[in-house]
């Protein structure tokens, strides 16, 4: 095959195009960018921070003197246990008692 002076230019042109398309493609991929909680490790980090603050607050509670109206307010961890149990009861009652009673299809009243 005869050497043509155009060949390197062509190759360069094709190469350049490839690079540009590559960039565009990467940019297109980048456009749907990764958001904060798309990465599982960020979610994990958040959970770790949350769980540790939950423990920290429980410990802090033990050293807090409370202005109590009722005796039970001074029990260590009363508010923590109350909040937790209240929400569990709330969810269980809503899901297993209330929902079966009141749930209807969306066109129920039509």
């Amino acid at each position, binding site marked *: 095959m005869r050497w043509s002076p155009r060949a390197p230019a062509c190759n360069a042109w094709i190469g350049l195009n490839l690079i540009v398309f590559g960039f565009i493609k990467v940019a297109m991929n980048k456009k749907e960018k990764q958001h904060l909680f798309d990465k599982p490790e960020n979610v994990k980090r958040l959970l770790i921070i949350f769980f540790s603050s939950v423990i920290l607050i429980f410990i802090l509670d033990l050293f807090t003197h409370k202005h109590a109206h009722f005796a039970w307010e001074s029990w260590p961890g009363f508010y923590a246990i109350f909040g937790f149990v209240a929400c569990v009861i709330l*969810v269980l009652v809503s899901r297993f008692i209330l929902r079966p009673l009141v749930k209807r299809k969306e066109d129920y009243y039509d």
Partner: protein
Amino acid sequence: MINAIPHIPPAFIFIVGALLIPFLKGHTRFVYMLLLPVAGFLNLIAIPMGTEWTVHFMGYDLCLMRIDRLSLAFGYIFHIISFITIIYVMHVKKSLEYFAGFIYSGAALGAIFAGDLFTFFVFWETLTVASVILIWMRKTKLAAAAGFRYMLYHVAGGLCLMAGIVITTVKTGSIEFGYIGLSDLGSWLIFMGIGVNCAWPFLHTWLTDAYPEATIGGTVFLSAFTTKVAVYALARAFPGTELLIWIGVAMAAFPIFYAVIENDLRRVLAYSLINQVGFMVVGIGIGSELAINGAVAHAFNDILFKGLLFMSMGAVMYRTGKIRATDLGGLYKSMPWTAAFCIVGAASISAFPLFSGFVSKSMVMSAAGDKHMAFVWLVLLFASAGVFHHAGIKIPFFAFFGHDAGHRVEEAPKHMLVAMGIAAFLCIFNGTFYKPLYSILPYPALYEPYTLSHVVTQTQLLFYSALAFTLLLLAGIYPAEIRSINVDFDWFIRKPLPFFLRALSTVLNGINSLSDRMLVQGFTGRVNRFARNAMGKTTSALLLPFILKDRADKKEKIEWAFQTNTVPVGAFAACSVFLIVCLFIFYKI
């Protein structure tokens, strides 16, 4: 007779100002509408305490403007939220929605500054009429139907209130709107009439039914005024009524269960609105200075954070066209500012330290504690944990986080962001620098929210509620959002009522057609047939006993003779004599 006219009643600025709105367009209209609440506010702070605009009317003294510390606190917040909402609804083209919004907020101002029951009632009814327009402006079939049901409730409540006012006024001879207290029938009727607007249990369904069906901006308007005017009226007329404590406790407790399983996020907020009003009603029921202060402060803050939450959900709806939790999720990627403002609202309603709910909700709880109402206190604590659970976590989580529903939309329009920004700022400001808020409360506020004990216990309560949510979600026990509706107490109106109507129509229409057949067709027909030949029939009936043979033949002949007017002259003479004899006998007797 008007005694003095130095100041303009705040309601007039809004209502008269609203009349000009339809004639303005574009930017002029917007600037004009922004100036209305500002002018109203400047006017309000210039008015001294006391009563003005006393008008003599039909033997009674009407008082159009009474400014005292209780009405003033509501007056301030009503102006602030009108200003914010007007910025928020800037995208709306039609003047009618603005017009209705201003009439509505003006009516609310008129009701709280009314010094007599009659003026109060007139503005109270205006509230209903203006608010129903905000619902109908959505222009969907659901909104139309919900608006009608809304109207039915409020008209019934209004009639109840009017009956109460009439009875009370006639009995006491005074029309002044002051402390009423539960005693006779009239006071009970007023109590119940206010209760309808306050969304008491079993009377509450207009709220959860209609608010989520209103327009995007309409819901923000609605969330601020109707229930808060009712709270004001209760604080004015029924402070310290023990029954209110129990009503408030029920209001605080039951909606949170519904809110957990509700799919429509604006309906979740409607349920949590009842829950928050429950705290205020408990405060009014307790009636101590601290409790009333708490109720008013919480009303003030609730208008802001509930407005903010409704605004953020409205922005989501505006951009995505969806509001059901099942259709949403992951929006923090495209609407980060809206998400941030929503979280501020959520933190405020949950009463996180440094957010507004923290400094007001605890006043009511503290007042219950001071009176050693253990049960009330525990239910309110449960409701505090519950509200964090559904309004504090559920709303932001399902709209902005959770599973990504794939909406790639623009951030909310600028004017919405500005409105939400102002509301969010005020939520944090009231929570952090609570002194200005406390200084406008009806009684001297000595309460100190930022004690180490309060901060730690409240944070603990909220974090462990969040822990429960997290663990239940991770374990898959948390109820998944389902495309469904949940029937509420309005089932008793919406389902059996059509059957009742059908039964009624069957029975009544049956009676109608039976009467038609028996009376109109049967009886009348017979009378008609008889009357056509009454003379002949009567004569033949009278004569027949004396005719011995050919009876049928003779009877026919007689009747035929009468029909053809060929009766012999003698028969007429006999009849006439018979008549005269009869008359003579009756006359003698």
